[in-house]
């Protein structure tokens, strides 16, 4: 009896899945017919002719239809069942998550510190340069940029799509000042940060009256303006050709070169580029950690609270006597300053910069890192940077895919596709970013006082209500 019931139920399920699959097939056929089904090519007489690609079209529609059928038949009921199940498992996963949360940060920090020796011992000197430079330094630059932008976007809630402009200001400040005046990296690092902050304030002044989408559009335009100035102001920036042979950073005055005065010779070691790479790795690690430390400190000060309040409700801020213009400008300047630090480090590391490195794409990647990581969460931003930058670097290593797809296949070409895919997945799975918890900047329970009412333990901060839409 029961078997019969379940049988008829499964038959209903199959019929429903078939119907959904059929509808999906129809829609995908309609969409792909003009996109995939027809292809215009130029023939030998220079004429445009229409070609059809029925097999490809059939294959795509087939894949989508089968996928939808399986989803409707298996995955959707499974998800529904999981939602129905009692919360027991969630409790266990919460304990597990808390344990992970406690150990993740010390572990990550420790790993970041021992990463260069680890890479050296695993892949040897030759391989380690690539692993430390392409993965370690590259990822840490984006971690730092992400943390810097996190102040502007994550804390103050100002969507800045032109962040790369300040990165460019820092890089060109270092390159030009170091080449022209021969100043050292350590002197120019704070100077580049200050210059970037200055430009942040200068650009910020006229645009900070705008909010939301309007601010995003204007900052995007500023990013482009800076890039166009770099391209067209040839006497100073050398235009598209960029600036080359930028002085490299020294180990507190000792250069990393093959000369007798070089780092290796002084320590009695054999010359190798690995020393500079390791040094640069620790420099950017220190810079990134300084960014994190300052952000954490500022969050607990009135200015940090005012930034977050600004993100929540600007009008309420003004009604409490907060000068919102100044508050926004400090956030803008602070974010720009960290971009300036990162920029001057970037110029020193590369030894060559050109406007090519400061396109809108870079801004978009940094914003994506902040949004995917979870606005305001330092750990989330770091994880997102590792995934997105490390992921694209990993793709260079996937040579075996050429065996599958043929020699013309270049995995890095699919970077943007995977970027978009990751974005869609995160937005479906975790719309508020990888880590959406917000740690309060002050807890009353930390300040035992004369209150007569006993404090209730903190309830679920893990799932705060969705942020209201910010529409001007």
């Amino acid at each position, binding site marked *: 009896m029961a078997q019969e019931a379940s049988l008829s139920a499964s038959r209903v399920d199959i019929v429903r899945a078939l119907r959904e699959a059929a509808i999906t097939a129809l829609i995908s056929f309609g969409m792909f017919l003009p996109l995939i089904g027809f292809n215009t090519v130029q023939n030998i007489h220079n004429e445009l002719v229409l070609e059809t690609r029925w097999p490809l079209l059939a294959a795509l529609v087939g894949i989508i239809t089968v996928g939808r059928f399986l989803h409707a038949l298996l995955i959707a009921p499974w998800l529904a069942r999981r939602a129905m199940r009692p919360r027991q498992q969630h409790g266990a996963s919460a304990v597990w998550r808390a344990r992970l949360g406690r150990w993740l940060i010390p572990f990550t920090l420790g790993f970041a510190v021992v990463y260069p020796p680890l890479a050296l011992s695993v892949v040897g000197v030759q391989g380690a340069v690539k692993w430390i430079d392409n993965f370690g330094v590259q990822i840490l630059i984006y971690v730092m940029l992400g943390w810097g932008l996190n102040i502007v976007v994550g804390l103050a809630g100002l969507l800045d799509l032109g962040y790369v402009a300040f990165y460019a200001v820092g890089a060109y400040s270092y390159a030009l000042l170091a080449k022209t005046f021969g100043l050292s990296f350590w002197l120019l690092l704070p100077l580049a940060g200050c210059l970037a902050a200055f430009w942040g304030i200068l650009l910020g002044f006229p645009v900070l009256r705008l909010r939301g989408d309007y601010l995003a559009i204007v900052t995007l335009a500023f990013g482009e303006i800076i890039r166009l100035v770099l391209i067209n102001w040839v006497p100073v920036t050398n235009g598209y050709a960029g600036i080359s042979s930028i002085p490299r950073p020294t180990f507190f005055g000792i250069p990393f070169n093959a000369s007798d005065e070089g780092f290796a010779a002084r320590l009695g070691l054999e010359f190798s580029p690995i020393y500079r790479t390791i040094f640069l790795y620790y420099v950017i690690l220190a810079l990134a950690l300084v960014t994190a430390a300052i952000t954490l400190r500022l969050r607990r000060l009135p200015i940090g*609270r005012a930034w977050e309040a600004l993100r929540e409700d600007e009008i309420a801020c003004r009604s409490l006597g907060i000068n919102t213009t100044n508050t926004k400008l400090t956030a803008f300047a602070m974010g720009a300053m960290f971009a300036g630090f990162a920029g001057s480090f970037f110029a020193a590391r590369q030894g060559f910069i050109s406007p090519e490195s400061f396109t809108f794409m870079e801004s978009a990647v940094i914003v994506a890192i902040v949004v995917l990581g979870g606005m305001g969460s330092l750990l989330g931003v770091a994880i997102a940077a590792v995934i997105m930058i490390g992921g694209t670097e990993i793709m260079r290593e996937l040579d075996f895919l050429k065996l599958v797809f043929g020699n013309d296949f270049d995995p890095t070409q699919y970077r943007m596709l995977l970027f978009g895919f990751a974005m869609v997945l995160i937005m479906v799975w975790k719309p508020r970013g990888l880590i959406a918890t917000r740690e309060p900047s002050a807890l009353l329970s930390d300040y035992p006082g004369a209150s007569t009412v006993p404090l209730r333990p903190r309830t679920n901060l893990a799932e705060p209500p969705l942020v209201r839409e910010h529409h001007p």
Partner: protein
Amino acid sequence: MSATTPEAALTAAPPNLAPPPPSPAPILRVEPLSMRFGGLVAINDFSFIAGRGDITALIGPNGAGKTTVFNCITGFYKPSEGRIALQFGDPAVWDELEALTDRGTRSAARGDGMLFLLERMPDYLVTQKARVARTFQNIRLFQGMTVLENLLVAQHNPLMWASGFTALGALGLRSYARAERAAIDKARYWLDKIALTDRADDPAGELPYGGQRRLEIARAMCTDPVLLCLDEPAAGLNPSESAELGRYLHSIRDEHATSILLIEHDMTVVMEISDHVVVLDHGQKIADGTPEEICNDPKVIAAYLGVEEDEVAEGGIETP
């Protein structure tokens, strides 16, 4: 506490004619205030006085311009015409009013008395310098931040001073730690007062509606105002919560030397707690007086119940 102005004379006179005569020491004087949005006249020659230590209610039908008056007082709108003067400290400074108006500056001081022309100040300075705090019709809390953080953000300006505009605080100086401690104690005082101490570390958005209303008032009080402007504080509250609100407002007035100006639709609340009522309709003042006088004013009844103009003129409606 009775109203400090001779309202009886005012209500008898036709509205919108002369500015009210200066009272002994009002806290706020609004003199022919007009606000036009393009061709729309939202407020027309509106004058009133809020007495020191009074709870002044601003009432009127929907769309009468009450919130516009609030926005003008708190600096969110710049009025088309008019003068909004606020004073605290030594009342002798009121004598400076005309000189200040002619001088074109924002404020005047005499002894410990301060006089401000609010229409000349940007919104955040109205709170920071002139010590006017406000709440909003649709509650505007920082929903994702905790209840305690909401009260700390309200103490932004003193804390910024104490932290040496972030520089000293970032270094972890003890003077800042003391100031933060004091800010938290103040927040705790208000939390105890609004019975939300046990929820201090929860996000403000998770509080029940009544709690959010109380928190918004407490947050405004954390800015140390001399005048508290409340935009429909009883909206959405049940009768017992409204009664509690009345006690809460009385204690604010009596214990914190704060005068209150409020917009309210709930007439029971208005009649119970206010010392002085001003009625606004179509941007014009139609009545001004004690709650009893307002209750019996035929113009007010007409405005609320909507009768024909001539009926009012003939006194054709009966007072209930």
